[in-house]
């Protein structure tokens, strides 16, 4: 159709991208999914998902997304390994630039998701993989009978801190405010857990050590008091950053870098849709990613039908 390689290209292979791909393949839309590393997305690091409907016993993040991959594959979704570095959405044929290769499509679904926000403190980058981690499921077992610092106060920080207590003898949960944002059920569990000590009103100022992490410096934002917590690891869960830098103004973003969209998941560029954590959304869950993706896929179908109808006139 109209000189483009594909009718739709989906950027990103997390729950949003795989769901969109499943819907579009099933609808026999000529589509392709581009994934920069391996499919799965952020949910891969989630030990246990207990709020995705249909899994009353819960399911590991890796299992859930593996099932999504299989389901998309079953309907013939092709997946290629490529990182989209920049785009051109100015014309009817959308261009995606991936290093030496350029892909073209009549429509696009952006499902690039988000990545964990960094603390941006001294030591964080140097000790990544040497004590600094963003994934308790991956790395918690290295901290058996050790002491770790966890940073954050939302659902992820609290849930993952609880997971850490299965291994670590002590978890300092450092939170910048005097109350947690996490769901009440998670708060109840963390307050009842003797291995967790919450360090209120405090921020991490540095991660220190010799070869591996040995101490985490924290500062109380109310009193100004500074101290070093002895810790073998530092797990960071202070929110996420939408992965939208590559768009460089091609679609409208909000102040936080998330893609603005209407309820049909249409972005400011015609024929370009968004789904999942990259979107300006009040909730970032697997369920909302899947929901966004189903709506975006419908939008793509309608848009392509519109293009075809236009051609026949």
């Amino acid at each position: 159709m109209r000189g483009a390689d594909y009718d739709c290209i989906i950027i990103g292979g997390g729950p949003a991208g795989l769901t969109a791909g499943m819907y579009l393949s099933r609808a026999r839309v000529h589509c392709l999914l581009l994934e920069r590393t391996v499919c799965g997305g952020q949910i891969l690091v989630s030990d246990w998902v207990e709020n995705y409907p249909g899994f009353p016993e819960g399911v590991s993040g890796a299992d859930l997304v593996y099932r999504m991959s299989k389901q998309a594959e079953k309907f013939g979704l092709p997946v290629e390994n490529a990182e989209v570095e920049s785009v051109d959405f100015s014309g009817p044929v959308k261009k995606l630039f991936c290093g030496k290769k350029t892909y073209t499509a009549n429509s696009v679904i952006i499902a690039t998701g988000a990545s964990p926000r960094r603390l941006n403190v001294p030591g964080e980058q140097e000790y990544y993989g040497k004590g600094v981690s963003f994934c308790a499921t991956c790395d918690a077992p290295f901290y058996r009978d050790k002491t770790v610092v966890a940073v954050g106060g939302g659902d992820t920080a609290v849930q993952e801190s609880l997971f850490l207590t299965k291994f670590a003898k002590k978890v300092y949960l450092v939170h910048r405010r005097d109350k947690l944002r996490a769901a009440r059920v998670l708060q109840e569990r963390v307050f009842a857990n003797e291995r967790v000590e919450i360090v209120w009103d405090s921020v991490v100022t540095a991660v220190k050590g010799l070869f591996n992490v040995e101490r985490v410096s924290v500062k109380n934002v109310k009193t100004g008091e500074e101290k070093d917590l002895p810790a073998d690891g530092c797990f960071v869960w202070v929110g996420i950053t939408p992965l939208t830098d590559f768009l460089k103004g091609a679609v409208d973003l909000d102040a936080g870098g998330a893609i603005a969209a209407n309820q049909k998941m249409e972005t400011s560029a015609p024929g370009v849709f968004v789904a999942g954590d990259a979107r300006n959304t009040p909730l970032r869950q697997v369920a909302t990613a899947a929901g966004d993706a189903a709506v975006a896929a419908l939008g793509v179908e309608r848009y392509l039908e519109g293009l075809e109808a236009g051609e026949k006139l």
Partner: protein
Amino acid sequence: MSEALLEVTDQNFDAEVLNSAKTVLVDFWAPWCGPCRAIAPVIEELAGEWAGTVVVGKCNVDDNPVTPGKFGIRAIPTLIIFKNGAVAEQITGLVQKGKIKDAVEAANSK
């Protein structure tokens, strides 16, 4: 585990990895690690593509705690490329297949 993959253990590490005449890529993983499971098929593909030229191994860090300890591994998946008994490159976290290929080719051409 596929036949093209070497199972690396604390017992055979010196003989099969450090003393290997070929470049060796070792994937340090564990069953409880989601990203490790996601990258596993990529490692298997590479093992198939490189059969006979580069040794590709997997080391389960649960069953073999000594070897990851030697290399200060505190996060997985970690991929280490060994050449002539030394670490040529260490990669932590999920990466694109092409980047693993580039790193192994760079080690091979040294």
